């Protein structure tokens, strides 16, 4: 089980701050595809960065059971 977090506009569009992937191991590119399929109303799934355990990833990085994945849309703090 892998936890997926949404923030800001993506969270509002998804209607939830988090959901769970049942995979034991899944690449970032695949996570994007799963989220697109599960939440068709959420825009920016391609554009957002994906973090695993609070670190930014590359597309071929892999999340494993127990990891926390987060979609990071373009930031606007400061």
């Amino acid at each position, binding site marked *: 089980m892998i936890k997926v977090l949404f923030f800001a506009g993506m969270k509002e569009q998804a209607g939830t701050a988090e959901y769970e992937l049942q995979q034991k191991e899944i690449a970032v590119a695949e996570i994007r595809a799963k989220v697109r399929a599960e939440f068709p109303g959420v825009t920016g799934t391609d554009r957002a960065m994906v973090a695993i355990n*609070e670190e930014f990833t590359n597309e071929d990085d892999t999340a494993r059971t127990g990891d926390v994945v987060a979609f990071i849309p373009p*930031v*606007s*703090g*400061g």
Partner: protein
Amino acid sequence: MGEKRNYFVTEEPLPTEELIQSVIRPEAGAVTTFIGTVRELTEGKRTLSLTYEAYKPMAEKKLAQLGAELEAKYEGTKVAMAHRIGKLEISETAVVIAVSSPHRDASFKASREAIERIKEFVPIWKKEHWEDGEMWIGDQLENVSYKDQKKPGEEESP
């Protein structure tokens, strides 16, 4: 690298004076501070208030990483940074960056770079509230895409 308390995200008003004090040291002669406040007008549009949201543990971690990087890059600097989240009114303080150094040049450069880089990759978002609507900022910029770029937060070559 600074102590943990030097880098935080909070719903409370930011303790500017405390952050400044946390970087003052006998070997420092200069402290520069950058304070970001909620501006009423942006490109002629009137903001009523802002709501900031953060991926808090990651944002604090990224602030600490950024601080450590700046301290390594600008010799003799000590850095503290804090960002407020939640609803902020006009003129309230959203972010405080304090940098001390033996000589002022390093502090000015480091605090300037700190705010630029916070805006690039620290996972904090703001929603602007106007009379006629509201919007999460950042997300609407079609020309901003992280894909096929280097990871945000990775330092450019010097």
